[in-house]
């Protein structure tokens, strides 16, 4: 008998278990969660979700997060496109060192930068704005996007550029009309990773905001309110944070594999 499926199934169950736990908790009342373990919600309730979608302190968290994540993705990808093109097409003094140095930016924990960023953005009055968080996240997202895009661009032969010039295109027209559509898959993958890293990053986002641009993850840390622990609410909020990433990954699922094959993801 073929038993090959047993191990993967166990593994997937193991991975899904916490997610299921979170999901099932989000449909329970806090009292039931504190009362004892149960596999299915005994008193099924949507109250937690209703609270999130009606209380501005909750749903604004999502909106804030989405705004700065989108701004960040936009900035990162549009800045990384020309940079990656330069790295893939031109040879210049120290190009390889510079390229590697970009990656080393990802090696420092964001906490290192929290304090200088806090001071800097306070000084130029960007503190507690979406732009502040978006810019701060560029620190690690631009190098990442450059790294991913460079891999995709180097897979496109230089002759494509040359043919476009021969066919009468100038560089800017070629870049926008021919080159960007050709590496659309790469842009999708880069955007996905920028989105993900910016979405899950908590420390910088929390440090650089107070009220107006407070991200959802920061809101979620304040679950101990006057009415005690609101674990059901927390679980519902947690379940909702999974959704944007799932949507984005659905769109780029076919290209991610290509990115892995290039060794750049």
């Amino acid at each position, binding site marked *: 008998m073929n038993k090959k499926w047993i191990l993967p199934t166990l593994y997937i169950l193991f991975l899904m278990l916490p997610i299921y736990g979170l999901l099932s908790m989000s449909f329970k009342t806090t009292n039931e969660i504190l009362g004892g373990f149960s596999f299915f919600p005994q008193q099924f309730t949507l109250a937690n979700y209703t609270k999130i979608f009606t209380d501005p302190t909750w749903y604004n968290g999502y909106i804030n997060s989405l705004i700065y994540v989108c701004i960040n993705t936009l900035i990162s990808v549009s800045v990384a496109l020309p940079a990656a093109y330069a790295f893939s097409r031109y040879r210049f003094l120290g190009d390889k060192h510079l390229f590697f140095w970009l990656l080393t930016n990802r090696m420092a924990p964001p906490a290192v930068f929290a304090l200088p960023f806090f001071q800097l953005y306070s000084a130029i009055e960007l503190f507690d704005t979406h732009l502040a968080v978006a810019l701060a996240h560029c620190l690690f997202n631009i190098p990442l996007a450059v790294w991913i895009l460079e891999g995709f661009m180097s897979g496109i032969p230089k002759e494509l550029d*040359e*043919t476009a*010039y021969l*066919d009468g295109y100038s560089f800017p027209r070629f870049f926008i009309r021919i080159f960007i*559509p*050709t590496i659309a898959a790469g842009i999708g993958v880069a955007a996905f990773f920028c989105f993900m890293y910016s979405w899950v990053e908590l420390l910088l986002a929390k440090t650089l905001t107070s009220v107006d641009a407070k991200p959802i993850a920061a809101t979620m840390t304040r679950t101990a309110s006057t009415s005690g622990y609101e674990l059901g609410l927390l679980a519902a909020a947690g379940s909702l944070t999974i959704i944007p990433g799932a949507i984005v990954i659905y769109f780029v699922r076919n290209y991610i594999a290509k990115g892995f094959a290039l060794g750049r993801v």
Partner: protein
Amino acid sequence: MSRIEFRDVRHAYPPPPGQAPVYALKEVSQVWEDGGAYALLGPSGCGKTTLLNIISGLLTPSEGSIRFDERDVTGLPTSERQIAQVFQFPVVYDTMSVFDNLAFPLRNRGMPESRVSQRVTEIAEMLDLSERLGQRASGLTADGKQKISLGRGLVREDVNAILFDEPLTVIDPHLKWQLRSKLKELHQQIGVTMIYVTHDQVEALTFADKVVVMHDGGVVQVGSPVELFNRPRHTFVGYFIGSPGMNILPCSLDRGQPVFANNLLSSGYPVDTDLSGKLEIGIRPEFIRFSDDGIAVEIQKVEDLGRYQVVTVRHESSQIKMLVGEDQAIPSEDPKISFDPDNLRIYCDDWVVESAHA
């Protein structure tokens, strides 16, 4: 259309920091007449592609100038030179259909749409692409894509020249012949200058009226296929063209006539005796015969190629290849060979030595 002229063009790619530049192209002065069919022949890495890219403007030469009909275009960008170029590996715009790919160079120059579709249909017909015009270009096989690349090069009528950079490498052998004769036919029809880069001598000799042989960054000889075969100006040409290539043997001079291994030979023309440098004789395998008296050799190998046999013989340390007709006997005892004096060339430091009295 125009006459393309190279004046003292040299090119070096940017060297790694701290090293002297290495010239990929050393001093080329060359005229490409309007409407000629040229082949650029040479081994890999001899500067052929560099030369093409300088014509099309993808590279700006380090020194020298390029003129189209006396107009200096050295600094002109590629998009303004009106050159079509086809590369070794297929380049298609994946996001467009086959039709749009072929129409692209025309539309970019504002040709009316009715004329565009007429032209594209013509070219597609010629390349057997008619049935695929509506398909997306990304789904085609390598040779299908290369046909699109070729088509895009041929579709414009107003070009100064069409450059082919080993365009048939990825194409099936039987289709190769067909496409090459199509190209030749097209050249006769439209009379545009074509420059065809290849390292395959058969391709070069069948396609071109004039073959430009390049070696180590320089042009060593320009001539018709017959000239290249009969009168190679450089030992490289002799060796590279012909199958098997010319035998190049060390020699010395005695009263204007070459001496090879203590055998005084006759070369058909006397040369100056005070030549200094490395002296060699060149003789094609076609012009060596077995004879009763001559140079004593030892037969090493006989390869039967059907209509003739390639015989490899040895005299002291020199290996000599010769062609023998299938009906001719190969002597079994004491073989001796002689060279045809009219087809014997003398080379000094690899360059041919012309007659002293010419």
